[in-house]
């Protein structure tokens, strides 16, 4: 008699062809981790579908076998895979085509397995870009992953998050049915409008961690490629004044990207030759874009005035001119000595940040001896997401040191709990952050989510356990 796994492999092979199905332990192990320090989660089978129809059939098979589905995009998450073990991992990255660039409605529709850098590369050929153009991990992170995590990152200071540029989705529901949201729900309409034609069902799937369905196509706003840009860098002695300057710049929505570097990163970049950063506590870096030199010069002059009014000292813009001409190549993902890293991005109102930030150091004080002993470092940089600062508080450690890794997991969790209790809004959640966020939900809100999950996914097939659902 055929084992369950063999029967599953056969059923999936009938859908996508045996070439794109594997139950080989080598393959399964290679899918067992994301980019976090969390321990492996080994699935039973990996499948790489090539179309929405194939995804729909895979979901139906999973329901028939009552086996979970783990949806995987770029595998660049820093949050751990869903809890449990076994099941089918769907690797979405074979679905990486642009379906349509609709110049009439100024949208692009793409399969969700495309990563942000590929999408931008293709759009640039036609003279376009999405306003928000992906998380800092967008060299691997996919469109689907970005939407499931409500990503912020490049372009977020001016244009917000992926949610703000999303027009509609094609989703394979946990039953295997396929729906389109936004104006795509009208078979006679272009995919050009998110709202109208009923409730905003697109929003249901934004930041859902994939638990409500498998996103297979997304339609996003596009804009002409901004061919003029300038940069500005300012150092500050005082964080409160620095945040006030950022806040005022943001009231006018001047830069497309803003990064705030704190002392350790300033020292690191200063040492690497970025002028004016070596010995300063705080530095703010602006990326301003537009469609003419006059436009960007005027915007820069406005920003300059605000920064200087709050005590900013202008230094050569080495860092932003390096960093923002190399999107997705944010360097500190590896430590200066080759350490591994973990962080937790989240949003906190800009003016609340100085007080909020003190909390980390109170938490870390408990671990100062072990951090010294295990060579665990803590660095901070923030990006700006419209009205919020999005701190990236990085823990670095040498990953060969298993004890150090375990301490980092503990410290990281402690930071997350305290961040949530101090009003932080995390957006990429996965297992580790998601379960802590879900514990914070009120009973009524959690029941509401559970009701939706059960209605959509009666067998609990897709990404089970995330958000404790």
């Amino acid at each position, binding site marked *: 008699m055929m084992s369950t796994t063999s029967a599953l492999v056969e059923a999936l092979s009938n859908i996508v062809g045996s*070439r*794109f199905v*594997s139950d*080989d*332990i*080598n*393959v399964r*192990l*290679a*899918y*067992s*981790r*994301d*980019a976090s320090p969390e321990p492996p989660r080994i699935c039973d089978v*990996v499948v*790489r579908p*090539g179309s929405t129809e194939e995804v729909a059939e895979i979901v139906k098979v999973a329901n028939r076998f009552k086996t979970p589905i783990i949806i995987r995009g*770029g*595998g*660049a998450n820093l949050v751990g895979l869903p809890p449990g073990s076994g099941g089918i991992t769907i*690797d979405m*990255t*074979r679905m*990486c085509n642009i379906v349509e660039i609709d110049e009439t409605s100024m949208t692009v529709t793409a399969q969700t397995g495309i*990563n942000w*850098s*590929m999408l*931008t*590369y293709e759009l*640039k050929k036609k003279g376009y870009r999405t306003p928000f153009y992906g998380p800092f*991990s967008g*060299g*691997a*992170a996919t469109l689907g992953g970005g939407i499931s995590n409500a990503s912020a990152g490049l372009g977020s200071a001016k244009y917000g998050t992926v949610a703000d540029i999303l027009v509609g989705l094609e989703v394979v529901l946990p039953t295997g049915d396929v729906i389109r949201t936004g104006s795509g729900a009208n078979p006679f309409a272009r995919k050009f409008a998110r709202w109208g034609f009923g409730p905003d069902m697109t929003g249901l799937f934004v930041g859902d961690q994939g638990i409500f369905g498998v996103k297979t196509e997304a339609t996003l706003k596009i804009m002409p490629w901004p061919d003029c840009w300038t940069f500005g860098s300012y150092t500050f002695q005082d964080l409160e004044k620095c945040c006030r300057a950022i806040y005022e710049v943001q009231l006018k929505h001047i830069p497309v990207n803003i990064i705030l570097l704190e002392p350790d990163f300033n020292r690191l970049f200063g040492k690497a030759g970025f002028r004016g950063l070596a010995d300063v506590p705080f530095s703010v870096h602006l990326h301003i874009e537009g469609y003419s030199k006059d436009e960007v010069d005027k915007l820069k002059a406005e920003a300059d005035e605000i920064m200087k009014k709050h005590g900013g000292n202008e230094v050569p813009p080495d860092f932003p001119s390096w960093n923002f*001409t*190399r999107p*997705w*190549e944010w*360097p500190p*993902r*590896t430590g200066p*000595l*080759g350490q*591994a*890293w973990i962080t937790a991005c989240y949003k906190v109102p800009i003016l609340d940040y100085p007080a909020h930030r003190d909390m980390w150091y109170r938490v870390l004080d408990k671990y100062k001896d072990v951090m010294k002993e295990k060579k665990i470092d803590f660095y901070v940089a923030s990006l700006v997401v419209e009205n919020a600062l999005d701190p990236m508080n990085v823990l670095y450690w*040498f*990953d*060969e040191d298993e004890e150090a890794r375990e301490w980092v997991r503990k410290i990281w969790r402690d930071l997350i709990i305290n961040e949530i209790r101090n009003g932080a809004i995390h957006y990429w959640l996965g297992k580790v952050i998601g379960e802590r966020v879900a514990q914070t939900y009120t009973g009524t809100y959690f029941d509401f989510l559970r009701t939706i999950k059960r209605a959509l996914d009666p067998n609990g097939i897709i990404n089970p356990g995330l958000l404790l659902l």
Partner: protein
Amino acid sequence: MSKLFVEQFKEEIYRCIRCGYCRDFSRYRDSAYRVCPLRENDATPGFEPYSARGRLMLIRFVLEGKLQLNEKLADLFYTCPTCRNCWDKCYVAQTRLKGKNMINQVEIYEAFRHDLFKAGLISPRHKQILEWTVKEHNPYLEKHEDRIKWVPAGVEPPPTKSDVMYFVGCTSSYRQKNIAAATLSLLRKAGINVGVLYPDEWCCGSPMLRIGHRELAKELAEHNIAALEKAGAKMVVFSCAGCYRAFKVDYPALGIEPPFELKHAIDLALELLDQGKLSIKKDFKAKVTLHDPCHTGRHLVHIKAELYDQPREVIKRIPGIEFVEMERIRRNSWCCGAGGGLRSYNADISLALAKNRVKEAERTGADVLTSICPFCYRNLSDAIKLSGSNMKMYDLVEILDMVTE
């Protein structure tokens, strides 16, 4: 389990942060579209272990004792042309620490292939190649005595001793004889009395290193160096990118520093053109595009010896050529799929990669595809035939030989 050879890279393996940029990362700033050729157009099933992140994870599992060496694991590691684009696009690898790149993916794969070889997990075809190379000093299952048969009828055979020796390599000796003949002709036109090691030229050892037989590679390297020294070489010229890389990078890594000046033929030809020792007398009327081999490119950038400008400069000087670049060139050049032992290990996948490169060449509108490596020549010309393309393949040395007197 006895200590694995790859353990020497443990620190580097643990530096991989699993960001996944080694797969499809694309950079509009320099037209780097995607990274791993095994993932493009379904050339392989494209699962994680077909690219660097998955490979390094699996080695890590092996080092942690959670995975044993096995046949399927070996298959995943031998299904790689070791084009080094994953190294080139990995920002951890491109960060230097104590004068070294933080991760060196291909060196890690090849160390692991050595462990797979030691465990007897190589393919029958690779086993046959190794055995034949011990016996006849070439991986093509050809007789050693036939090695010199590339010299065209009516052409005076080159001497076996000279201060300038041409290291022909196995591919040009037995398969792309046209390239060897053109190289000899070109050097003679410049008045160089170029010698060839016969019967003492053996395989450079590159295929053995790619398969994982380091001891045999070292033996071949030692033999070739000694033979070249005996022949009085002061300069050794190569028309094969693989042999050139072996002498430039692999021999020193094996502890053997070649005591000669090492020159790729196209680099030397450019110098000879500059010195007026070679003169271009004819047109080459064609729309031409150039494929940069991995072995003269990404495999040499860390020693600043890459050959990207030289072939372009040569092309620029040939009248009649309309030169058009492909989308992915220089450090972003898309691998033809021949290298890393892939052609002999899995010709279907190797040729699928080559077909992708030919399609990219066709998109330029060029009618001629040129390169500076007989192994790239072989795979690309096979892909041209298999895909029904109308493109013509020439080595750049051949084109130069046609237009010089």
